[in-house]
């Protein structure tokens, strides 16, 4: 195993991306909350919201810094570990890669300006306007990079003749069928994760006995985001199911352990698979649900795995990741829904400690769900790296030193993974909210 560059390259890519997507997701999700908090603060002349935006920005900046680092790593690692893939991809899908760098460039410039100009404008609305390029830049980066991933699932916009790419149409490649559902899902889940992390921080402080209205304002703002974006995530998650059923049926079938093509297909939750018999034990079955997920009709026919040659099956363990992702998504939606019901109906206390605990749990759960969903979609594409054209095994580096690099980068991520929370905690405990609010009063 230690000599197989393909497997090792997959592992190294896995840990790099697994680490990077945490930073990337938060980096895409949080700017909209910073921006809206600052705008509310300016419009309602409420300096609590301004302070909220400031403190969120501080944490955000450190995460972005680490995200820049891991993003640079994955940018280069794609070429270092998958040279043949990048060679092919370079021919067809380099446009969004190129534009992603532009979008990130744009974001980085304005983040630099935004951070250091809090008090440099007479009219604070000018400072708020600087946050718009950050929001656009970060979401646009997510958009462009997701188009590349979508392209790997549904490659379009070229002809392959004797190993050479001809008739290349960069925009067709970019706007491939997988793009809309993937982009939508990536963006709303990033907003959702950002919201839940911010809500979890506020809930944590409230649970610790802080009573300042600052935390309650933060919680409420974030929880509205949690609810709206969890609903959006469920909607486009459903659309993603329909996309899969239509364009990439083997991925859906593998995720659902759906072997025989049938109509009135059932949705399976959990279970243990006997692969030889293709039988499932201990699973919960929901009649018609898979047909509805796939085609919105209980009677629709869903293609099963047995219609595909077995060497093209994705690994079947993705079923569990699929289930876990959905369960966490439902949990997040339920928590935010309950919070809003409690909040709008005065009979309940929306700051109930048990509810706050559930919100606190929601933060790490949201990140886990991002990881599970990402594993589902990447492993579900196996054995292909460009579905139908190029297999993962054909494109890995032939170098014999991947194992050493795996160790090297693992140590790096371990160090960063320990230092990052330490630094963040130290940063936020050094200046408490209360002291900053008091200071602000003196200035006013």
């Amino acid at each position: 195993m230690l000599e197989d560059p393909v497997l090792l390259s997959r592992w190294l890519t896995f840990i790099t991306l697994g680490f990077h997507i945490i930073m990337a997701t938060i980096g895409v999700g949080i700017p909209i909350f910073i921006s809206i908090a600052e705008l509310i603060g300016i419009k309602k002349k409420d300096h609590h919201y301004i302070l909220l935006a400031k403190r969120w920005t501080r944490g955000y900046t450190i995460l972005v810094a680490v995200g820049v680092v891991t993003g640079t790593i994955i940018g280069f690692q794609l070429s270092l570990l998958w040279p043949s893939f990048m060679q092919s991809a370079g021919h067809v899908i380099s446009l969004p890669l190129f534009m992603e760098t532009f979008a990130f460039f744009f974001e980085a410039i304005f983040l630099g300006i935004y951070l250091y100009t809090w008090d440099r404008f007479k009219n604070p609305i000018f400072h708020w306007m600087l946050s718009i390029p950050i929001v656009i830049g970060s979401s646009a980066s997510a958009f462009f990079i997701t188009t590349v991933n979508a392209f790997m699932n549904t490659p379009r916009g070229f002809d392959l003749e004797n190993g050479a790419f001809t008739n290349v149409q960069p925009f067709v490649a970019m706007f491939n069928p997988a793009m809309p559902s993937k982009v939508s899902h990536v963006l709303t889940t990033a907003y959702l994760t950002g919201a839940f992390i911010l809500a979890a921080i506020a809930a944590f402080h409230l649970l610790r006995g802080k009573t300042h209205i600052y935390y309650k304002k933060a919680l409420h703002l974030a929880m509205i985001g949690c609810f709206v974006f969890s609903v959006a995530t469920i909607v486009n998650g459903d659309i993603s199911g329909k996309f899969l059923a239509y364009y990439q049926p083997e991925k859906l079938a593998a995720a659902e352990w759906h072997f025989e093509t049938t109509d009135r297909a059932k949705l399976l939750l959990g279970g243990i698979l006997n692969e030889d018999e293709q039988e499932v034990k201990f699973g919960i079955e929901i009649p018609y649900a898979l047909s509805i997920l796939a085609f919105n009709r209980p009677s629709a026919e869903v293609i099963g795995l047995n219609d595909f040659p077995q060497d093209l099956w994705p690994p079947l363990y993705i079923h569990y990741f699929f289930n876990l992702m959905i369960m966490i998504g439902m949990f997040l939606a339920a928590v935010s829904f309950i919070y809003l019901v409690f909040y709008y109906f005065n009979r309940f206390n929306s700051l109930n400690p048990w509810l706050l605990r559930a919100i606190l749990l929601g933060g790490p759960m949201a990140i886990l769900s991002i990881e599970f969903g990402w594993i589902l979609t990447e492993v579900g594409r196996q054995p292909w790296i460009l579905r139908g054209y190029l297999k993962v095994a054909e494109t890995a580096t032939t170098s014999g030193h991947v194992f050493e690099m795996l160790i090297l980068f693992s140590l790096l991520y371990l160090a960063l993974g320990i230092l990052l929370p330490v630094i963040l905690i130290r940063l936020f405990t050094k200046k408490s909210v209360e002291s900053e609010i008091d200071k602000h009063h003196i200035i006013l």
Partner: protein
Amino acid sequence: MINDFIILILPILVVFISLAVFFIWVFKSKEPYSNSSKNTNVKGDT
């Protein structure tokens, strides 16, 4: 075809609609917990 609309157009609309709903909701809702904050600092002179 309805399927193409759902798969290729609708998801993009979902993003924009959810952003719009979020912004409007946050702006239209009244100040949260404003009547239960007597035990804390009163808001600034703003």
